[in-house]
């Protein structure tokens, strides 16, 4: 198979070579770009004389992107990956894959379309990928590792990478409506898959449509609808998910005294159920476990005309049984099946360790690319307040934020307070309080040598009353810092750090395969996890950069002394945009 792919890619490359030679005649017909990365890590356990361990890994990777315009207004894009793992020998460890394939274009100057691998983000309650636990508001800390994880997992902003078709068109209106935008997509997050000769998973389809209206007098509105559904007859499962979600928003913008304001009212609903297929006769007999949930909220954003400051307040209520697979699926997998790839077991007893700061920052395999039909497990150490983003169910509360931009500095403050709407395992309700404060300081634009330093601290507090068993109290802190200094032209010394601390206890939800909450796992958190990085970065040109870092990371769980770990990592990466 690999041989055929290699042959195919060689054919493509030779053809592209030819096409580039003819580019002078028709410069827009064929072109080639891509990305190349050489990555190497060497990990070592520190202070473990009983079980000294060292492991190295890495690869050379070349992603070639041929772009072809078969006709005007249509582009065919493919991404062909050639990857060679370090230690590969005579072709072993070398992979050639078609990583992405897409046809995109414009029909009759009206309808834009994409077919194949598409990146989609609809709304925060229908289809949206929240950045989640690795979030750094300034975006600088461990940038190399985060870019690596994002690139390998197709993370692009808040969009999910899906396979299917998407199209949109905009129309000009008259009278009260100035513009109408229509957008629709049909994707297949999971294809039918044979489990054995007699059993197979059904196709899972995610489809949606969006209508946006821009009216006069600064009014506008959005209506989003998405449906996740298994196609029962394409597989042999008894339970097939059906999850329609609707989200409507109404905006009003205003300008007053040099201040821009935007009011938003939003609401929506969802239904999550399982279509039951009778395995004896193959017929779909009805719905099971149907749960309906709604949400509603008000938002007020305000910003200075010169963008020197901005702020906002919001109030929102999300029903306990609001379910939206596209918006609540997490970027990172914290289930027990997700095992860190670096030193997964520690200590003399070789116990599996919990996911640490290092893993969510730099472990490519911890990330999740799929849309989950049920709520995924969470990690309270990193986020216990809104673990499923804005669409987190069972929350009622308010948020506020303010950001001030100075000439060389930025300051940010975020605060929120939520409460549950329905107790979990008790009628007592949790309350969640969160605060985040951060600042970034940059060198003056005229400075001969640039520097930058940024920091952000996020504190979350969870509290629940009741009996001794029902009580919950959890305090977590996540502190992120990053700094860079240009020692020589295009030669930077950079460092990053993140420290996560948790104290208290919480109950984690244990859900069945159908998403039903049937048990709780009491988790005692007396844990500290950290990661630091010190390294150099050299930009060889606008498109080529090289980084070498020395990272030290660890975690210390007072309740599981055997899972204590201290490790170091040498991290080298050379990247080139082609």
């Amino acid at each position, binding site marked *: 198979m690999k041989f055929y792919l290699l042959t195919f890619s060689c054919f493509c490359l030779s053809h592209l070579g030819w096409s580039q030679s003819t580019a002078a005649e028709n410069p827009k017909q064929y072109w080639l770009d891509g990305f190349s990365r050489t990555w190497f890590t060497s990990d070592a356990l520190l202070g473990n004389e009983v079980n000294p361990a060292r492991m190295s890994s890495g690869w050379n990777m070349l992603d070639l992107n041929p772009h072809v315009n078969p006709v005007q207004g249509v582009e065919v894009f493919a991404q062909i990956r050639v990857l060679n793992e370090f230690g590969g020998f005579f072709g072993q460890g070398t992979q050639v894959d078609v990583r992405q394939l897409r046809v995109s274009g414009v029909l009759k100057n009206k309808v834009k379309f994409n077919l194949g691998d598409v990146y989609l983000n609809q709304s925060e309650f229908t289809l949206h990928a929240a950045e989640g636990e690795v979030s750094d508001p300034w975006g600088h800390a461990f940038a190399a590792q985060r870019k690596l994880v994002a690139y390998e997992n197709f993370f692009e902003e808040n969009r999910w990478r899906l396979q299917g078709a998407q199209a949109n068109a905009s129309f000009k209106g008259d009278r009260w409506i100035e513009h109408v935008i229509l957008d629709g997509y049909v994707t297949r997050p999971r294809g039918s898959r044979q489990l*054995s*000769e*007699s059993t197979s998973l059904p196709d899972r389809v995610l489809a949606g449509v969006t209508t946006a209206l821009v009216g006069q*007098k600064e*009014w506008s509105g959005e209506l989003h609808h998405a449906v996740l559904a298994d196609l029962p007859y394409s597989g042999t499962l008894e339970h097939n998910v059906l999850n329609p979600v609707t989200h409507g928003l*109404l905006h*009003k913008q205003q300008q007053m005294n040099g201040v821009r304001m935007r*009011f938003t*009212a939003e*609401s929506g*609903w969802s239904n999550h159920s399982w279509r039951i297929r009778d395995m004896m006769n193959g017929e779909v007999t009805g719905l099971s476990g149907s749960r*309906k*949930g*709604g*949400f*509603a909220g*008000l938002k007020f954003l305000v910003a200075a005309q010169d963008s020197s400051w901005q702020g906002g307040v919001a109030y929102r*209520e999300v*029903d*306990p049984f609001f379910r939206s697979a596209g918006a609540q699926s997490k970027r990172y997998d914290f289930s027990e099946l997700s095992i860190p790839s670096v030193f997964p077991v520690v200590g003399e007893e070789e116990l599996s360790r919990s996911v640490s700061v290092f893993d969510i920052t730099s472990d490519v395999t911890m990330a999740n690319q799929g849309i989950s039909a049920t709520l995924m497990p969470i990690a309270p150490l990193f986020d216990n307040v809104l673990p499923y983003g804005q669409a987190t169910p*069972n929350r009622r509360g308010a948020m506020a934020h303010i950001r001030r931009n100075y000439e060389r500095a930025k300051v940010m403050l975020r605060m929120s307070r939520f409460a549950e*709407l*329905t*107790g*979990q*395992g*008790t*009628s007592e309700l949790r309350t969640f309080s969160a605060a985040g404060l951060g600042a970034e300081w940059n060198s003056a634009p005229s400075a001969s040598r640039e520097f930058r330093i940024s920091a952000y601290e996020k504190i979350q507090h969870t509290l629940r009353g009741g*009996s001794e*068993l*029902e009580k919950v109290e959890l305090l977590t802190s996540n502190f992120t810092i990053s700094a860079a200094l240009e020692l020589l032209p295009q030669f930077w010394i950079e460092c990053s750090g993140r420290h996560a601390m948790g104290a208290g206890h919480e*109950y984690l*939800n244990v859900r069945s395969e159908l998403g039903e*909450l*049937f*048990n*709780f796992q*009491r988790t005692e958190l007396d844990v500290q996890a950290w990661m630091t990085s010190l390294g150099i970065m050299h930009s060889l040109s606008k498109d080529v950069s090289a980084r070498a870092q020395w990272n030290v990371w660890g975690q210390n769980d007072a309740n599981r002394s055997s899972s204590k770990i201290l490790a170091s990592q040498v991290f080298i990466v050379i990247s080139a945009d082609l």
Partner: protein
Amino acid sequence: MKTTTCISLVLLLTLIWNSGCNRPASEGPAINDLFGVFEVIDSLQLTNVSPDFSSGQSVGFSCKFSKPVEWNLLIRGLESGSRKTFEAFSSELFSEQIVWYGNCDDVPFFLEETCEVKLSVEGEEEEYVATLQVEGVKTYSGIEVANFDAGLPDGALVWYQDGGNMTFELAQENALQGNQCFKMGGRVNWDWSLGYIDIPIDLSDVNASAEDFFLNVGVFGGVDGEFATDQYVNILLSESDAPFNDNVNNNAADIFGTGSEVYKHQIRPVDWEGWRYFAIPYSEFEVKSEGGNNVREPSEIRGIRLGLQACPFNSGNCPDNGNIEAQADVDYIMFTEELPLLEQE
């Protein structure tokens, strides 16, 4: 603007109010129950302490706890060592649901013997014990291929290589069921295949689909924890219409040759002591050689081959096999419909 804003807010509040009306007070099991003090409210009870499984009797078990727990119920034959387990997460065992029909999780089979019943709860030290007396053992139903008690099945053919200490024969010791089993063992340094037994079958009356048709077979792995490297049982089922043994110059039956419609399954590796019992759906057999319509049809099965294979010493991949005989005895070969033999009620 003011009118529209008011309408929006009213709609919003209506929605909040509506959704709030359907909210339960709490979701999930009560934490006070789950993590509270564990108590046995109703002790372990058996509906029948002297069951005669041969006449279709059964035993139901009941018990009630103060909270949902992970429980495990183990029935162990004091003479045979046979075991049957039930486990679940619940606060109560209902005698209508937790029912034992005399079957076992794996071989050996239960005998007419005293059995110990032990109920344990995760996280609790105390165990709840009862006893029962099996007055009659369960009779399993199915299509018998071979139990070897009266010798080899009619028409069976045995072939084996000219190796060392070859034992492809009936044996009285260590039989799984009855008084004889079929031994397969020996040492062949130059080839994977040591030998096999071919048995003709007529299943023309069977109506089950491949998914609901199971081959059940007991396999004896060895003793003293010493096993030849990568030894396994190779099972072939043939749907060929060719005569079973027309060519007497062949090593054994003709229906497994290249070009015949043959399906294959391997029990690999065989690396356990004593007997284990396997149930393999016919649908999980893979195509060995294409010849017919390549659709697994139980009623078309004409013969079965059970062979012993092991990594040959001369290959250089298994140096230890120069000093050890491969062994995988078989017994109590049955076809069952709908359920594996050990899951029959």
